[in-house]
């Protein structure tokens, strides 16, 4: 019994945000790497550094915007899909499942005999 479409979508979107955050880290490391090269006197790394720095801010921005949207989604769904607080859910109704299961079994057993 998969979760409803909407929630699957949210999870997918959160995955994308994760990837963006991850990319942010990568870009940061690349930016630092190119700055290092620049300091070593490799002047033609400058455009590369700029690219990496830009990518860093771009991915960070995208992730932040995405997260903001996701938080808004949460906000909008409290009360309709979500409970406002974290309550301890209870595993009720398992007695019903079991009784049904055993009645089915009983039926099967009795059918075989007749």
């Amino acid at each position: 019994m998969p979760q409803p479409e909407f929630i699957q979508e949210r999870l997918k979107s959160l995955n994308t945000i994760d990837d963006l955050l991850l990319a942010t880290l990568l870009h940061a490391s690349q930016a630092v790497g190119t700055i290092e090269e620049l300091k070593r006197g490799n002047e033609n790394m400058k455009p590369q550094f700029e690219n990496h720095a830009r990518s860093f801010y771009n991915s960070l921005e995208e992730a932040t915007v995405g997260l903001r949207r996701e938080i808004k989604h949460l906000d909008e769904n409290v009360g309709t899909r979500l409970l406002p607080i974290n309550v301890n859910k209870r595993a009720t109704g398992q007695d019903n499942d079991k009784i049904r299961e055993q009645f089915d079994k009983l039926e099967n057993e009795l059918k075989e005999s007749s």
Partner: protein
Amino acid sequence: MTEEGANGRQTEDDGMRKIPLAIDPNLIRLIPSFVPPANDQDAEEKISEEAQKSMSSAQSLVNNPYESFGSMPLDQLIPIILQSRGIGSKFADLSEDTLMEEIAKESNTQVDTDGDVNMDNTEFASDADQQAIKPQQIEDSSPEDEESHVTQEQFQQLKLNTAQSLNLALNESSLALEFVSLLLSSVRPSAANASMSPFLKKTVPPASLNAEKIPAEKPKDTEILDRNLVTKGWKLRSLEESRILLKETHKALETSLETEHSYWSKVAHYISKKDVVFKMKDKETGEKSLGLKYGYEDSGSTYRQERGIAILRHNANKDNLEVIPSEKRQQSALGKDNSEKFMRVRIFNKIQEEDDYVLSGETSLEDLLVPNSITAGENDIRRQISKLQFIIFEKELMFHLKKESENLISYGVTIENENKVTVEFPTEKMEFEMMKLNDDLIMNHQQDAPKTNDRKASLILVMLRLLLVVMFKKQLKKKLLTGQKDFNANSKVSRFPESEALLLRPIMGKFRHGNYLNLLQKVIETYILEEVEGSTVVRVALGNFRSNEDYDEPTYDKHIVKLDREIRLFDQILQTPRTDLLVSLPASGKIEFSLQSSNYCNATTSVKYIDATDSTVFDTKFSNFKELEDFLHFIVSEYVKSNTAQV
């Protein structure tokens, strides 16, 4: 170079240089006794204007003083000089000697007209020198004119300010002097003593201040280079470290995110809203994880040996979700037996005249417990959960069964061991055993040939489970009736004592009742039917002792109504057994027998003798068949037989 030299000369001795220039023969004539202006800005401007005039019309330069040339900038002056010397002359050609010559020539010519020229010249020169100061005074007088507009008060104020500034400067300088004197006192006490103020001498002992000159350590070039190198090295190293740290974190996070994403997508696919999932720390891995409640705690179970909580763990190797009971590790660490177990029911038949039994039927292994490699994905998770639910349910079943059995020892029930309960009947024996799920069992299942009582064993097991659910339902109803508010309270266990287990008794009670009934029928046959001719025995149908409708009357909570309906389904099974028999005696009335059990296992027979006149002669109860036999014998011989004999 010449320009520079001229420049240098000008700065060196301005006054001196004015003289030779003034003696320029072209200009000398124009010299009336005019005051040379100072190097005041305004004057200079005036002069340059006039100089220009003089350049355009040399003749009219009546007022042009020779001094004005002296204060002219060189770049203006030199062209004028050159001009006056005629075209083709070069400034570089000018030398002191030639100029001296020229002057000499000129003075010679002038001697002719005026012998005093030389004198005049010198006189003039000195005069000019004197006059050179004058203009300054004249010039200074002009600001003074402006100051004359200053009011008396302002003047006083300015005077005061000046005096103050002077005082301050004096103080500062004397302080500085004192400082120096004091400093000096350590080396040259006499000199210092002379210059130190009396106050200082009194308050500060001489030679108490010392200073030493330390040469400012100018780092050597190599040192600077060295340090710069070190600095650069450090920065590069730090950057490199930073980069590596970022990179490695990125890498680590990348892999963990991958599993994380896979985990959540699996959870989202296989875990539904219905499942009770909550945040939980995985004690084994220390990670934050999700817990899943599979136990029946919230569904009426009173079993507390296990919590019925599992962790949804992601198995990175198999890339799937695993449902792992939270107690599994703890309990195995404590040496507790927590293996997967299930209940097996076996029926043995007693071999006639021998004290031995032969297996006649047993329950088969649940399909659920057989590992199935085909099921994957969602099915696999659901199966894992179902299996856990199944196992915890079976354990609870055994738990209650054992509790119930403790009081049934006198009725042929034996608790053989922790995992086994047997119930003996005259002709057969039932065995309820918790089996460990092991490979052998799984391998051998379905291999045994079907036996006659297999189905009976299964039916009994199904009924046991159903009865456990009924226990749950009763418990739920009890909780609902007691009020929802303390539903969650910890005290619930003590507040709601476990309802009495009613699993084995209803079932074995029915068997026992059947046996009692056979016995009773035999007794009736022996003591009545065979004795009294024409007597018959019939079974009296029992009316529905409780109408279904009775329950629905007070409509509670819909949950309670539902629970009631479900519980009522089992009334027939759970009611204590009872069979009524009616023996009709021709012309001598009837005997009503009612075989009942107060606790499912015992048997009491109530006997009611009603004679032909419809009056109740005897109404009594027996729990002992021997007594019943005697009593029946008595009735038959005393009332029935005598009656028929009389007839």
